[in-house]
């Protein structure tokens, strides 16, 4: 296709603001997928997902559209992950486009993550097409949201398209705007090949399939290609595009979006953001913006039943085939036995991985409390990275501990500023700035939306910050965060001893000013979570060998059936079987049986 007739775009939207519906509508209106096939296709891919244990979704789609000028255009829609955990992936998807549809719910207004993505898109000089969606809803306020978009992002009023993806309203205008407003891809079609990888999937027959945007040159033939960042070389097996299913093509031209089957066995060799070029005639330099996705959140994953260790290992090995951002290595815990220390992009990523392991591989898992990575400088002058509280060196050997900090953006109606401020302060956060996104004078008091920017230690927002933020703003606030730097802090490890035995999987790292309070809370939570045993069980919290809190779980007194005669044996056995089931779910630490919830107690310290 001639470059001048290609348009590459993505959709930026908050969850539930209607991205998928709009994408479906575009595919339908352009005749890429018939309405009937739409649902069939969805079902097929879900079956496949279940069968193969990999995610296959419409990550990109090529549409053919004849515009009002009578010319046929090639529209390439690139799907973007919708969560802040995947900010880097989002930035690479954006980099593959010249423009973006900014879809905002006409009843909700713009949210923090959307705004963050808008800034990302603006930094990359993408042409933005603002779409106010869901104007059919009775509580839609298109004028108000439109004026917010004008004020915050600087759109002209006549740029904004009013739409209802559900009802198809505004879809023709959107298609025309894509053609008219988004510039065609630039780039030298005769230059050396440079193609950006914006996603990759593992296919058991074709190896790693890289989703690419060709920036310069073109892709064809069977000559070896080179991945400029990882240095991997492969012989291309197949080129093609998405409609949205994979459709082979003889070549991908300059400016086009599609895929190349690499035959590579490891997604780690074919990372998002890398540049593909010809091995024999490589480009001078790779496309900009590459970085290796770095895990931010770490947690131990253990099989509840130690017999499942081998199965867990195999499941993780298969999972990383498709997920280069997941890292793991074997780990053992005194309390939990053998498992894996895993690194994730964020909490959602952790949750997804855990759920897939359990659902797709039938494993029963125990996940330890998530931790950030601390940088520890020892008195011997060494630099160690610690992502598991259990591994923190003895306090006497620590010179400095540094922890990761994040910049967070919160968007909220101004009446909640006080609550947000208070929440962030209790999390050791520091205020940076505040900006009104709407003029207060136009609205009733407290209504105007405001952007608050803070700096906060990552560890403080890791677990329940988002829930608390939502809770203290009646659900109105939205959040975006970004790792900024490492800063020294007075951090200590709180050890937990159960029946006198330190339980590594229960220890936590916290700021020294919080250690007493959190130690006390954790001990009292554990007292409630660990059932009474056959003997008294002391629960202690200690910092550097000094006990800071102690409670005792009294021995159980009574667990017996009052009577058991002939007719009771079968009936009462059920009660015993139920108890036995409960016991099997416990982890035995020393001679104390600890339920799984206890290992997550450290996550709930803020409730009480």
């Amino acid at each position, binding site marked *: 296709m001639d470059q001048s007739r290609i348009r590459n775009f993505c959709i930026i939207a908050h969850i539930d603001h209607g991205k998928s519906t709009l994408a479906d509508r575009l595919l339908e209106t352009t005749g890429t997928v018939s309405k009937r096939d739409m649902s069939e296709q969805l079902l097929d891919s879900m079956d496949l997902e279940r069968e193969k244990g990999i995610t296959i979704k419409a990550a990109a789609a090529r549409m053919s559209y004849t515009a009002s000028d009578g010319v046929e255009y090639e529209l390439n829609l690139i799907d973007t992950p919708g969560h802040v955990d995947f900010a880097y992936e989002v930035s690479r998807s954006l980099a593959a486009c010249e423009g973006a549809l900014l879809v905002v719910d006409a009843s909700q207004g713009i949210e923090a993550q959307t705004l963050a993505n808008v800034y990302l898109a603006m930094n990359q000089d993408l042409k933005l097409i603002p779409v106010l969606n869901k104007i059919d809803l009775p509580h839609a306020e298109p004028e108000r949201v439109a004026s917010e978009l004008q004020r915050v992002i600087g759109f002209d009023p006549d740029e904004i398209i009013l739409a209802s993806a559900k009802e198809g309203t505004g879809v023709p205008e959107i298609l025309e705007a894509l053609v008219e407003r988004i510039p065609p891809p630039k780039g030298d079609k005769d230059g050396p090949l440079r193609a950006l990888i914006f996603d990759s999937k593992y296919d058991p027959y074709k190896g790693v399939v890289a989703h690419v945007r060709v920036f310069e040159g073109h892709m064809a033939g069977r000559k070896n290609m080179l991945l400029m960042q990882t240095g991997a070389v492969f012989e291309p097996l197949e080129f093609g595009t998405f409609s949205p299913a994979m459709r082979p093509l003889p070549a991908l031209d300059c400016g086009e979006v599609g895929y190349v089957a690499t035959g590579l066995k490891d997604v780690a060799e074919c990372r998002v953001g890398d540049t593909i070029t010809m091995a024999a005639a490589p480009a001078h330099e790779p496309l900009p913006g590459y970085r290796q996705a770095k895990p931010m959140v770490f947690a131990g994953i253990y099989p509840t039943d130690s017999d499942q260790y081998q199965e867990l290992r195999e499941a993780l090995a298969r999972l990383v085939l498709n997920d280069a951002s997941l890292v793991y290595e074997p780990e053992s815990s005194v309390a939990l036995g053998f498992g894996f220390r895993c690194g994730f992009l964020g909490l959602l990523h952790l949750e997804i991985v855990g759920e897939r392991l359990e659902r797709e591989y039938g494993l029963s898992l125990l996940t330890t409390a998530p931790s950030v990575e601390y940088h520890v400088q020892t008195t011997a002058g060494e630099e160690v990275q610690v992502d598991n509280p259990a591994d923190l060196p003895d306090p006497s050997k620590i010179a400095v501990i540094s922890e990761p900090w994040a910049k967070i953006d919160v968007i909220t109606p101004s009446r909640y500023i006080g609550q947000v401020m208070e929440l962030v302060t209790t999390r050791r956060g520091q205020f940076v700035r505040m900006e009104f996104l709407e003029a207060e004078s136009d609205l009733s008091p407290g209504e105007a939306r405001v952007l608050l920017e803070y700096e906060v230690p990552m560890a403080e927002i890791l677990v329940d910050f988002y829930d608390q933020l939502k809770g203290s703003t009646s659900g109105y606030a939205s959040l975006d965060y970004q790792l900024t730097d490492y800063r020294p802090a007075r951090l200590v490890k709180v050890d937990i001893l159960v029946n006198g035995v330190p339980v590594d999987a229960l220890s936590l790292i916290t700021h020294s000013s919080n250690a007493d309070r959190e130690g006390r809370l954790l001990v009292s939570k554990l007292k409630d979570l660990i059932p009474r045993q056959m*003997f008294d069980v002391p629960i202690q919290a200690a910092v550097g060998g000094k006990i800071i809190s102690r409670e005792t779980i009294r021995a159980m007194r*009574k*667990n*017996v*059936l009052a009577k058991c005669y*002939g*007719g009771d044996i079968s009936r009462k*056995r059920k009660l*015993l079987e139920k108890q036995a089931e409960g016991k099997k779910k416990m982890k035995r630490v020393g001679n104390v049986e600890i339920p799984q919830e206890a290992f997550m107690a450290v996550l709930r310290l803020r409730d009480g």
Partner: protein
Amino acid sequence: MQPLAVYVHIPFCTVKCGYCDFNAYSGMDNLKEAYGAALVAEVHANASLLSGRTIASIGFGGGTPGEVPAAHIGAVVAAIGQHARLDPAAEVTLEANPGTLDRPQLEALRAAGVTRLSIGAQSFHADELRFLDRIHSPQATAAAVGLARKAGFESIGLDLIYGLPGQALDAWIGSLGTAIGLAPDHISIYALTVEDGTPLARRVRKGEVTPLDPDAVADLYEAATDRLAAAGYLQYELSNWARPGHHSRHNMVYWTDGEYLAIGAGAHGYLGGERYQNIAHPRAYIAAVEERAPAPHPGRESAYRPGAVTAMADWFSLRLRLLEGFHEPEFEARFGLPLRKVGGVVLDDCASAGVLELAPGVRLTRAGRLLHGEVSARFLARLQNTLAATG
């Protein structure tokens, strides 16, 4: 061949108590005659199972077996005696409600072959009896014990319930003391249990009744243990005490893996390694017996053969209910596996917690008697983890 026990269920009650989840019905007196006939027919139908066996005990439970005409009881005993050898020293024990016992009835029961009475005293406080929906008074219990003695029963037991909502230690020990004062041969004490589906469970759910805290129930049990020992009663099972020689031979069968034949609606049996259950509803039971007899087990509803894990867990758990416990070789002789191998760390844990003794025999310690469920559940969980494949 080991002796056989027979359990006979009588499902009739004048009033069904609010805590009771047994197979018992009130307002079905018109069925009593047909039911008595069905019991006898069931015994005859099971002639082949009885033949050649020695019957060491017959237990009549309910419901309220003391309430049906003594002739029905006598007919069942006689029918059993037609097909099996009734041990001259056999225990024929019957559960009775003090409210429905008078002198003629007691004499008739004795003449029918009943040797032992288990009288449901439950409490000696009128308010507690009302709470439990019992139809009798404390005085009626005292009178019944006296009449039973005169009627010549060899062994008389009293059953008590403790751990009632709000029950204070002295109220409980008061009842127990009154019971001891009547000098029964046997005393059973049962903690009140809120069973699913009972009127009591509904009252608890609605918040009308707050069950006593389990730790307080434990205190009542400990106090009773001391009081009964001081009065010369020997504990032989978690809930049972007796004067020397007066433990219930019939009930011992259940705890020692003995075989028992089931007769009557909802009765459970254990025969040839199989556990089975009769049809629960009296009317349906009668109809089934009329239809199927003389084929064996005409009242049967269902049966199953416990797998290895279940059988071992049952054996272990039932034997541990006895204070004497058991000796390790008995377990190995029964199942072909050493107990230590099967129980592993569970036995050591329980022993080190002071709950279980492993030598010279395996038995619960005094502290462990209230933790029988804990020990059993741990043992079962371990069996399921290590032997699950064998069933």
